[in-house]
């Protein structure tokens, strides 16, 4: 073998490594990505998660496999993502419970800020305030007035201690000065028969949960909790409009990964999510359950998560809400 041939081989090897090593990083994703859905099939996260998995998979060229890992109010599934290798192949879709759990639970298997990376907030959805049809209440102002005239007489439903419907209700009581008894259910859907029968007077419900009951007036929607009105109930005031200034409850959803994700992986996933959130057919699919796309950059998402964490921490502290 001649020196030239050795040299030629050397150059070939160098070239090969030079071209392949960035190619390895560029080639993410090179295998299917697992999207953890920390709740059982049938809920909003499950529905939105499967839609996102399908569109994201088509957009970034590798299948995105949705996997339900329910348990402990979303903690089990989130923990799977927090413990996964930071390679971008295990990510999780979560709702506000991810910022509520750390304040509410006495012990957590992971640290929200140390073990998780915010990849993007993907959607926003207000809650809708529903009241029993028998109640002489047609608006938020009337609910407050009725509540003040009948102190301690009303009940409000939730999906369990520390869930968004519970905390939204507590926030409402704190802001309005109304007193009412909190009655927890396993899910907000389970409470509707009792709302229809006026055993429960009001509830802060997800739009998806409320729609079947508000379309034929078995319960009465009176307000929504976003910063602006929702296209699902265009005639309903927001709670803010109704006089409780700054009252906002958002059932947002966000995609998270383990801490230490390489920047380019985060960027790539974020870009993929931003792109599909502009797809009209995905927007239409999300609108069916009252969810609107709301993509953010990773940094903006992270600061949103922080502000949501602070907001609910205060509500929990002010209401002295704790497992007891």
């Amino acid at each position: 073998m001649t020196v030239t041939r050795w040299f030629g081989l050397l150059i070939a090897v160098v070239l090969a490594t030079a071209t392949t090593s960035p190619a390895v990083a560029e080639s993410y994703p090179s295998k299917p990505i697992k999207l953890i859905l920390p709740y059982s099939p049938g809920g909003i996260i499950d529905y939105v998660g499967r839609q996102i998995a399908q569109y994201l998979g088509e957009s970034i060229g590798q299948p995105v496999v949705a996997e339900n890992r329910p348990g402990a109010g979303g903690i089990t599934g989130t923990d799977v993502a927090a413990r996964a290798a930071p390679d971008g192949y295990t990510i999780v879709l979560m709702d506000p419970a991810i910022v509520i759990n750390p304040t509410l639970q006495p012990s957590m298997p992971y640290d929200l800020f140390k073990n998780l990376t915010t990849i993007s907030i993907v959607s926003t959805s207000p809650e809708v305030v529903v009241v029993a049809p028998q109640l002489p209440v047609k608006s938020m102002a009337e609910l407050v007035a009725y509540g003040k005239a009948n102190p301690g007489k009303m009940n409000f439903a939730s999906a369990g201690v520390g869930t968004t419907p519970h905390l939204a209700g507590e926030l409402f009581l704190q802001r309005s000065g109304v007193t009412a008894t909190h009655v927890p259910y396993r899910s907000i859907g389970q409470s509707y028969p009792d709302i229809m029968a006026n055993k429960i007077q009001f509830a802060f419900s997800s739009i998806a949960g409320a729609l079947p009951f508000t379309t034929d007036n078995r319960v009465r929607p009176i307000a929504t909790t976003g910063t602006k009105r929702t296209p699902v109930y265009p005639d309903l005031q927001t709670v803010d409009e109704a006089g409780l200034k700054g009252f906002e409850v958002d059932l947002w959803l966000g995609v998270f990964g383990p801490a230490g994700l390489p920047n380019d992986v985060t960027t790539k996933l974020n870009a993929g999510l931003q792109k599909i959130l502009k797809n009209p057919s995905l927007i239409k699919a999300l609108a069916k359950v009252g969810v609107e796309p709301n993509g953010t950059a990773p940094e903006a998402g992270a600061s949103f998560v922080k502000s949501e964490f602070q907001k609910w921490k205060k509500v929990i502290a002010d209401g002295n809400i704790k497992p007891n």
Partner: protein
Amino acid sequence: MDIQSYITLGFSIALTVQNILYCFLGVFLGTVVGVLPGVGPVTTVAILLPISFTLDPVSAMILLAGIYYGAQYGGSTTAILVNIPGEASSVVTTLDGHQMAKQGRAGPALGIAAIGSFFAGCVATLLICFAAPPLAAIALKFGPPEYFSLMLCGLIAAIVLARGSILKAIGMVVLGLLLGLAGSDINSGVRRFTFDQAGLADGIEFVALSMAIYGIAEVAYNLEKKEVATQVARHIGRVWPTWSDIKLCIPSVLRGTTLGSILGVLPGGGALLAAFGAYTLEKKIASPPRRFGEGDIRGVAAPESANNAGAQTSFIPMLTLGIPSNPTMAMMIGALMIHGISPGPRVMTDRPELFWGLIASMWIGNLILVVLNLPLVGMWVKLLRIPYGLLFPAIIVFCCIGAFAVNSNAFDLYVMAFFAVVGYLCLKLDCEPAPLILGFVLGPLMEENLRRSLLMSRGDPAVFVTEPISLAFLVVAAALLLVVAAPAIRKQREQAMQE
């Protein structure tokens, strides 16, 4: 449109080649998962939910519904042949069904289960057609006090129907209630009885617990017997029951169907309570001679009719109110929402093809089940007529896979191992596990409804007797207790148990 044209519409939808195929696939899969211990309809429906996204909503519902009621058939097959309830609702079928199999009458047991189920299925389907709206209105009146009293009534029924000592049966119910409380308490958020184990945060997994007791513990118990003869009935006899069997069973099937149809409509009731209730009722009112627990064919006919009727009518609150009565129905609602349909009374008017197509497919599905299952009984038997030495490792393996599949969590296997030991002790000590299972299922629901009732009444326990429906259930419960406690009847009961 009148009801007749709606039914015609339903059949025109259900009888398309595509929908017959999905109906067949659904009931076949349902039977298979019903036969296989450890894989239930809930797991299967959950797994098939993503596949159903690609189908049109009517076909998706037909497929998923088929799995649910098909499993009621399959569950009874294993209950009778190997004494393992394929589904929780087949637990009571093991009592007399397996006794019949041991006496070489597995064939008639399977036959009457299929015939009773078919009859009940037809009646329940008709019932959905004609009575969905008024029945839904009744169930809608139920608040927390009514549910609490209903469940209390159900538990007392479970005690009454238990074999052997009443004291032990009460103990097992209470133990079941306690075990059911493990996990996060929804009223306070406190985690109870979790012993700092993340795997217990949502409580003891029902599949792991029931498989431990009915699968693993049974295996350990059976292996102790001197000759480890096959537990599968060797001789099944002719499948078609004799005319005298059928005549004996007609009232039982009618009672089971009626009770099952009513209990199925109630959320939280469903097929399980229906089967328990029907068996208890049968024990109390079937005309003598009674040999329940020892292979009385009426002890198969009544609960099998009831659980199938209950499985069918549990669609009523889901379809008319959008309220799930059990986890499978919750998933059905999820499947509908994925297709942009909000379950509720409007489904009947806005999407008549969906509502009536599904109803019509249920009737077709029941027909397929009978046609499929009576000849296939031979196949199940061949499949199960394997020496016990080869069969029991398979039972252990299926239980393991089933317990793991629910949450993909290794911890559930440790739970299953622990309760296998408990279940073994219960078998050794003559403590019947069925009341424990019922207590386990109803425990958290009862506590929730009790606490909810008291929250709403601001702490006044009188609410349970001032609500008329609740009071009625309590009166029935008290009557049942008196019946068992009365010395004369108790003596009779003990005598009946010893026969």
